[in-house]
């Protein structure tokens, strides 16, 4: 007998994995970690919404997003009201870390298959440390994704796409990408 969808037990649907070889996943995640770190660094210098969030972080606040067991990742710290990248291996005591429990989990988030909040809720990552500051970092990531990603991609990564007009989005994205290029070229 056909059962209406409302009676389908929760958890009964399992989507197949990405089916992409691990070396390719690793390369993609490494690239995206590199990109996200630099975009976040640039955003914290030019985007007023993210600048407001960073201004409320504790001085010198250091955090990392990484794949556990030495996988790809990046580390940043607050410095003069901005976020600065620092070598992951040289990062001292972190106040917060987002640790993906497996490479594929990071691939799902950085491939915009599922959002950061959903990944956390599904226990695909552990978030250790100062959770209040962690919420500010999550809001920074959400804002950055909403601005720099095409709307149809950002919608997959976020719980809700914020009310940003096309003009504001393009202007903000241009500022962030330009700043990132300047930082890459100038090293600042």
């Amino acid at each position, binding site marked *: 007998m056909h059962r209406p969808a409302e009676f389908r037990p929760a958890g009964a649907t399992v989507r197949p994995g990405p089916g992409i070889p691990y070396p390719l996943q690793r390369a993609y995640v490494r690239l995206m970690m590199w990109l996200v770190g630099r975009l976040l660094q640039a955003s914290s210098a030019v985007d007023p919404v993210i600048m407001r969030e960073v201004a409320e972080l504790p001085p010198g606040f250091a955090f990392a997003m990484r794949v556990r067991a030495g996988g790809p990742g990046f580390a940043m710290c607050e410095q003069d009201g901005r976020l600065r990248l620092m070598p992951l291996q040289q990062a001292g005591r972190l106040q917060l870390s987002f640790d993906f429990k497996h490479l594929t989990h990071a691939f799902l988030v950085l491939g915009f298959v599922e959002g950061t909040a959903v990944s956390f809720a599904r226990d695909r990552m552990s978030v250790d440390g100062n959770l209040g500051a962690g919420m500010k970092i999550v809001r920074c990531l959400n804002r950055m994704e909403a601005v720099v990603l095409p709307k149809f991609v950002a919608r997959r990564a976020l*719980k*809700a796409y914020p009310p940003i007009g096309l003009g504001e989005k393009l202007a903000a994205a241009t500022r962030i990408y330009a700043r990132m290029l300047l930082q890459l070229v100038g090293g600042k």
Partner: protein
Amino acid sequence: MSQEFFEFFCPVKIAAGYKALEHIPFELEVRGASRPLLLSDAGVVAAGLVDTVTGAMGSGGASAGPLFDQVPPDSSMASVRAAVALYRERDCDSIIAIGGGSVMDTAKAVNILATEGGEDLQRFAGANNLTRPLKPFIAIPTTAGTGSEVTAVSIIKDEDSGTKMPFMSQFLLPDVAVIDPRTTLKLPALITAATALDALTHASEAFTCLAKNPLSDAYASAAITRIARSLIPVLDEPADAGGRLELALAAAMAGVAFNNSMVGLVHALGHSVGAIAGVHHGMCMGIFLPHVLRYNLDARREEIGEMLLYLAGPEIYASTPHSGRATAAIACIEALRDQAHQRCGLPRTLAETGKVQREDLPRIAAMSLDDGSMIFNPAEVGYDDALAVLEQAWA
């Protein structure tokens, strides 16, 4: 909802029902313990509940051990240190906590230092900073709401810095939760109602937030059923031991559910109102729950609609059109809260608490955005959204 991966963990043995307290000597013995430190607070002692526990232990041939009864309403570092000193001085080998959330939180922190040694509790603060099992720990809840007897979290106030330090580790979980109706029989009506709504909120948020999973759903739905069925009868007949046990079991089940599925916007707002205005946590939960469910309606209409089955029973669920079940479920919760208000004055709005000022609402909204619970809320919440929910809850 498709949930492709989840984790569920609850190794706490639950000893519940008739003469449950009399099982404590056995539970100590099988864990190789014989010299427990009893932790409680002055109110619990005055209510005679510690005597009830020690009497039950004595009848089973166990000595109760030293009592530390100076746990404050907000668990503090000073009380943890004092309790640890007594633990060491009397060469204890286990801990029995008798009380509500603050006693449980204190006991968990005492257990850290009792096991790990030293005086520096702060180095274990945060998530997953414990790496081995702690001393045998038996939890005896005297309220039916917090679920602390089955949760892996402790919050301790550091008087020096004025901050609250969270500790989260699977090793904080008690070995045994003893749920005996005698420990909640004397609970005043207002606290009975407020703590029951706290448990209802744990279950409702576990059932509707992002980390819901099939196992936590089972615990959450069973908890909702018991609270909806037993709260008003217990308020009408406080000596109803069966109803009291149902509420205490519901609180434990809701605790298991939210310890695995976490909570959302109701708790984020409630934590902030508690911090800024000092309103009882359970009262905050009762005030915010319907408003937040309404806020989450678009994101969780199916799940909230399913809650009608547990809140109102199969007849009403079946006779309510599918499209109207979610709003009917919210109306059920409001009716439950209103009935409790009629019986014991449980506040229905922030204004009725008499502690919150309307001009505090923006500050409460801003603070709630940084609460870790917010990430699990199914609908995105910004400052304006949080403020709008607070305004709805105002009067």
